[in-house]
């Protein structure tokens, strides 16, 4: 890992500690410090991605690089959203997740950029577009999942009549629900395009290189897409909101996480 990466991880790590302490009630009023450190982390992370790009490892050249980009997008989206909404509790999930993703990405075995056995030059524009769209989709769904988790925690606090926890560290349920829905609404078309470009790419690879075998992650990706489609249709058509929507969002994100994990394990092995 480069010095820049370590510094970014350090800033994210301290931000994570502050947010976690805030969540458990040991350090109140630390949201500004947490946000400042997260902003430093995002800046350093952006510089790190830029430097790696300059040296030929662009964010879509491999699964670890894509994971690092997901972490960057999640952190940046959280940072921007937290400027408008009181989302301190979500910070306790976002910051540690970002640290974990970067560490996984950067500590994974280094090897030549490979995707599905295809080197970057072989990917072509379609393959690159697929990976970029999938990365963006996963990042937005990840943020939606964080909001869904916070929703479920907040729901539990309010059901248990714990105003102290709810008021001090939470966000109104309605706000969390609306934000999560907005994320899914943005992520779904992006993920749909990723699925379509991916399907065409795999089909072409099968024809051109004989490498387009049907893998489990393809099926999981389609399953995930269906889960999010159901969520959007249920929300728009039948007005589904609240806990059910939160659980479905988590289910959908679980699918995307499995797909990413499958790619990552294949890369690592």
């Amino acid at each position, binding site marked *: 890992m480069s010095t820049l990466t370590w510094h970014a991880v350090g800033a994210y790590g301290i931000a994570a500690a502050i947010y976690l302490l805030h969540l458990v009630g040991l350090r109140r009023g630390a949201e500004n410090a947490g946000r400042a450190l997260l902003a430093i982390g995002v800046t350093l992370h952006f510089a790190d991605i830029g430097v790696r790009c300059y040296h030929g490892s662009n964010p879509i050249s491999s699964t670890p690089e894509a994971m690092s980009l997901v972490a960057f997008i999640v952190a940046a989206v959280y940072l921007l959203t937290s400027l408008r909404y009181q989302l301190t509790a979500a910070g306790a999930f976002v910051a540690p997740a970002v640290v974990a993703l970067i560490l996984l990405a950067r500590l994974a075995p280094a090897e030549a950029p490979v995707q599905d056995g295809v080197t970057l030059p072989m990917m072509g524009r379609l393959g690159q577009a697929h990976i970029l769209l999938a990365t963006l989709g996963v990042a937005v769904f990840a943020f939606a999942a964080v909001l869904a988790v916070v929703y479920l925690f907040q729901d539990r606090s309010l059901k248990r*009549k714990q105003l102290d926890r709810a008021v001090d560290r939470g966000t109104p349920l309605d706000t969390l629900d609306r934000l999560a829905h907005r994320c899914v609404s943005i992520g779904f078309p992006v993920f749909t395009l990723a699925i379509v470009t991916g399907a065409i790419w795999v089909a072409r690879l099968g024809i051109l290189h004989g490498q387009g075998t049907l893998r489990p992650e393809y099926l999981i990706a389609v399953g995930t897409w269906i889960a999010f489609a159901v969520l959007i249709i249920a929300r728009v058509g039948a007005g589904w909101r*609240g806990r059910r929507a939160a659980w479905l969002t988590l289910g959908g994100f679980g699918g995307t996480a499995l797909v990413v994990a499958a790619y990552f394990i294949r890369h690592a092995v």
Partner: protein
Amino acid sequence: MPGANIDLLLVGVSHKTAPVAVRERLTVDPEAIAAALTELTGLAPVREAVMLATCNRVELYVAADDADRAAAGLAEVLARRAGVGVPELAEHLYQHRDSAAVRHLFRVASSLDSLVVGEPQILGQTKQAYDAAVQHGTAGAVLRACFEEGAFRVARRVRRETAIARNPVSVSSVAVDFARQVVGDFARRRVLIVGAGKMSELAARTLRTHGATLTVINRTRARADEMAKQFGADVADWENLRGALVAADIVIASTGAQRPVLTLDLLTQVRKARRGRPLCLLDIAVPRDVEPAVGELSDIYLYDIDALQKVAGEHRAERAEEAAEAESVVEEELGRFVKKWRNRQRGPMISALQTHFHGIARAEVMRLSGGVDEKERKARLDIAESLVKKLLHQPMTALRDDDPDAAMSLVQALQRLFSLSPVAALPAEAPGEGSADKKATGS
């Protein structure tokens, strides 16, 4: 903290010493505050005055040369205002002087002396009282230091460093906070008020101020109409209770019914129709209006009067714990304030002492220099000035001592020995006109 030599005097009554029957007679309309302040600074020993009048206290903070006379005068003013004799009012009055008065002011501004400890209004009221005094020219150096550099700073620190005002302690505030955690901002939110009793009116008034849209539903339509008219609310027919519940974001139930009117069956149907949209149910009726099992339904958040009171009670206990921490902040700030005050007094006292001695020397030289020429008179003046400088060198060095306590005792000694007034030792920030004239006693 004795001997701080801050000539602040406080005379007043509060909820702790006087019943409302006495306090209500002492309240002052904002329009009448100027006249009241003028009356206070019209008392002979009073140089500066601030009048803090709220529903729980009426306190007069003054800077005065003769504290005993000033206290007697202030008691007379208050007694006259209350329409009673001084002895009758005396049992309700309290007074503090010097650093004890400053401590009291710090505690009041920090809401440690309030009926509901930690309530936020008192700081605003204290600021208003001080601003009124500044506006009417009755606040000078002493009160400016005590309020601006002291009380407001302490109150901000207490609020920032302790959790004394973090959580609400009244049932209605707790209910509003629960509702806010469910639906967020109240603007454009629909609040359904089930039952048109006195408690409902109270809740309606609170939520109306937060911008919510109200709908009243009551078995007796006429009563609902009456209440709706009062709060600019809509009215729904009792037969349409289910539909009104589906449309609402917050429900306040406060009927006089002996059995729950919002049953599990009804709310199960409502929940289904709402498709996961969260509903906050505030049941403030006794007997309860909502079946307790409703609280188990997902996406429905039920809070009855016991739950609200329990949370309010927990918050009150929390505040009591935080109050101890706040008291230590007050003591720390009082120590800092007194030290600063003493330091502030040294500089002007040195000047006053020099002016005093040089004035005497010059006067004596002039008296004994009749008939001598200008050159000789100047030579004599130089000798006298030089003598004064040499004589004052040691006292000046001692006054500039780093230890403020040691220096302060010297300042007090000098004041007594040479009749140097502490007023003359204050920074040259005169209070407003009218009161300024009689306060400059000089040395």
